[in-house]
């Protein structure tokens, strides 16, 4: 065995063609970077769609700037048509959830961080890893192609509620509805492949001494996320396949006329969909924990309870899907049960928030850009989490369900949460990816402006939601009870445009630093993680052929043992430390 081992690991270092190195690479770091670029592209697309939505809601029936370039099936001399508006909301949701946030958190950082933080040479199955990336790209392209179909993109909302999604004559989109289902099936395959990889790698490819409770919280979160993904996405795949068959070969799963059930789709979708919500936030929580500990120069407060909180959230995530269906005509008694389980999620979430505060308490806070965005995450995620309680309490959910209030809530979690975490994570591991630092100055400006405009955009949505503005309506002004709050809609739109504009600062910073950013020192953030024991950028094969030894947990900041320094790398061997004994894996089939 070992003989083979050395052969294959040494093969890492043979020079490779550009093609093998950057396109069809099996190196987890390259794949992570590939995911980064692709999903940032989809993030931009999603943003552009959002801008059009905001234009329509702020200024209904006025020609959109540049709207004339769109085909007449989408706009009528510049004015967004209702059918196009529905495509916008549908595809904004779809792209942001499935092709921007999810790959940014899982695709990028699970790939990039797991082996680096656990001292592995690569993923357990590098080739499957490559496939998982290219399948994700394929899925994205299929989804994108919907816009170029004669009758435009899918139109049933990102949740694709049947029967609307299953009946082209009712939705008005024939081909692209099918494309949605196909794309989701492909994406599901990609995610499952990826997650099988992450789980196996975390369990089996940890460096000697990297015990379960020495794993950084980012890895814990990504590990639990992978478990959620591996169990949740097949369900979505199944649902999408049933939907596809309804659309193509005339099955009747969601067709009430022939005994099908419209609610079946919602149950399947949300059984996947709620774990998905945690797939979109847990990695963010994990990475933020790492960054806050680093920024506070203090061990994370209550490491174990943080781990159990992650596990608790993940577990509860499986028994709360019904809270998306309180108004759907589901049995009210079920509603009660789902309400209780949903409210309980507040507990682990609270634990995490308070532990982050505890970590900062009596710390020595360094406000580098990642830390700033991490703090932004904590404060925004708190609002998002608390506004969730309104909808969790079923009676209060009645007036708020499917209004802009829920839109505000989910954006506080997905933008204020996940995206701020990414604005923290991207500059934090940028040096590890590209060997250069992102500009701190631009980063700080970007953070401040984003934070302001972000709140100006999404906070008022709570209020118009309370006022009763339904989701996904094309023109609120036709309702007497919504007319009075139109000025607020206009305000939101202007803030949204500003928010979008500010993001170009980030884009510029990201691209400019690739070439002109200042060269990164070995350990720019003075962190303890294994990855910082490698040069920047990390070489192919990481530590291969040998593996690092791990002597302690990841958060030993300001430890008295550290002497004059205020951090203590996991790989640093103190005189008091003994080497861990590597346990070789069983060979053969036993």
């Amino acid at each position, binding site marked *: 065995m070992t003989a083979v081992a050395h052969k294959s690991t040494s093969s890492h270092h043979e020079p490779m063609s550009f093609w093998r190195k950057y396109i069809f690479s099996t190196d987890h770091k390259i794949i992570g970077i590939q995911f980064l670029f692709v999903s940032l592209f989809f993030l931009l697309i999603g943003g552009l769609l959002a801008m059009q939505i905001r234009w329509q809601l702020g200024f209904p029936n006025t020609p959109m700037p540049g709207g004339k370039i769109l085909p007449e099936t989408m706009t009528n001399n510049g004015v967004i048509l209702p059918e196009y508006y529905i495509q916008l909301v549908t595809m904004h949701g779809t792209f942001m959830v499935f092709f921007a946030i999810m790959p940014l958190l899982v695709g990028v950082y699970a790939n990039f961080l797991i082996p680096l933080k656990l001292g592995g040479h690569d993923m357990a199955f590098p080739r499957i890893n490559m496939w998982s990336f290219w399948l994700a790209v394929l899925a994205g392209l299929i989804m994108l192609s919907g816009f170029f179909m004669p009758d435009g993109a899918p139109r049933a909302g990102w949740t694709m509620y049947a029967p609307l999604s299953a009946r082209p004559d009712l939705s008005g989109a024939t081909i692209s509805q099918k494309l949605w289902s196909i794309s989701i099936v492909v994406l599901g395959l990609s995610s499952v492949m990826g997650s099988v990889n992450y789980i196996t790698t975390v369990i089996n490819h940890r460096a000697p001494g990297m015990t379960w409770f020495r794993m950084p919280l980012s890895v814990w979160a990504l590990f639990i996320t992978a478990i959620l993904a591996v169990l949740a996405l097949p369900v979505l795949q199944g649902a999408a396949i049933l939907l596809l068959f309804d659309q193509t070969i005339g099955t009747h799963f969601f067709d009430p006329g022939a005994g099908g059930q419209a609610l079946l789709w919602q149950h399947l979708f949300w059984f996947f969909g709620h774990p998905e919500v945690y797939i979109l936030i847990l990695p963010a929580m994990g990475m933020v924990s790492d960054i806050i500990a680093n920024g506070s120069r203090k*061990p994370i407060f209550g490491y174990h309870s943080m781990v159990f909180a992650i596990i608790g959230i993940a577990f509860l995530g499986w028994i709360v899907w019904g809270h998306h269906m309180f108004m759907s005509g589901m049995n009210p008694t079920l509603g009660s049960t789902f309400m209780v389980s949903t409210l309980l999620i507040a507990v682990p979430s609270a634990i995490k928030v308070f532990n982050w505060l505890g970590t900062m308490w009596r710390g020595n806070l360094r406000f580098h850009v990642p830390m700033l965005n991490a703090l932004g995450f904590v404060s925004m995620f708190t609002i998002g989490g608390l506004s969730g309680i309104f909808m969790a*309490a079923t009676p*209060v959910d009645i007036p708020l369900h499917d209004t802009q209030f829920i839109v505000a809530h989910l954006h506080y979690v997905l933008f204020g949460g996940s995206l701020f975490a990414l604005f923290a994570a991207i500059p934090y591991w940028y040096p590890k990816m590209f060997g250069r630092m992102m500009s701190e100055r631009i980063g700080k400006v970007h953070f401040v402006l984003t934070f302001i405009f972000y709140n100006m955009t999404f906070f008022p949505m709570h209020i118009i939601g309370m006022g009763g503005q339904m989701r996904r309506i094309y023109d609120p002004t036709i309702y007497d009870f919504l007319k009075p709050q139109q000025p607020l809609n206009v305000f939101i739109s202007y803030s949204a445009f500003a928010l979008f504009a500010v993001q170009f600062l980030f884009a510029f910073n990201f691209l400019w630093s690739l070439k002109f950013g200042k060269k990164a020192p070995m350990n720019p953030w003075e962190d303890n993680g294994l990855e910082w024991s490698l040069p920047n950028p990390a070489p192919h094969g990481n530590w291969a052929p040998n593996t690092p030894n791990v002597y302690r947990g990841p958060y030993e900041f300001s430890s008295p043992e550290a002497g004059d320094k*205020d951090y203590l790398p996991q790989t640093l061997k103190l005189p008091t430390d003994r080497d861990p004994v590597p346990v070789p894996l069983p060979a053969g089939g036993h």
Partner: protein
Amino acid sequence: MRWWLPDAGSTFAGPIDALFLAILIITGIALVVVEVGLVTFVIKYRARPGRKAFYTHGSTRAEVIWTAIPAVTMVALGLISNHYWVLIKDKKSIPPNAYHLGIHAKQFEWQVTYPGPDEKLGTSDDFTVRNQLHVIVNQPTAVDLTAEDVIHSFFVPEWRLKQDAVPGMHIMAWFQPTKTGEYEIGCAELCGMGHYRMRARVFVHTPEDYKAWIAQQAAGGSE
């Protein structure tokens, strides 16, 4: 410009708004605690030369406290909410003296079926009016929600009433208007390109006016 929930128009508004306020206070307190703590720590513990962070891995006591407090609050909240939830949505809580109407949703209109003078649905004198819901003030009313093609959602903000209408299902929803006047029905579930235009009017009459209206309709006014 309204900064609060719409004006109360039904018996549900009382408890729901109260509960809303209660949650607003609870979450408000939590929010203030967190954000104030965050800001104070940011100022108080900012890095200064010569300072070193206090080395600790946490405290079980603290963990227990901030696990217990949310848990207790949430369970209490759950119990209170459930009481009203059952009151509003459970079939059994529909008052026996409820006046029954049928509402059939289709792309993109609401078809309201009235029992006619005999006040019974499913009889020959029933008639259907498009996009107009006429009800009696202070009269518990139960609607049988059905849908023709896709899922729609019956939403009257002033009544704090929302219920999906699902094809292939008969869903009962009830309400008791407390104010006469005119309101709007909106569709709260994406149902196609005309979703936003799926609007209907609600007229809350005094019993006399309603009788008069029924009579006039039954006399073929709908023709």
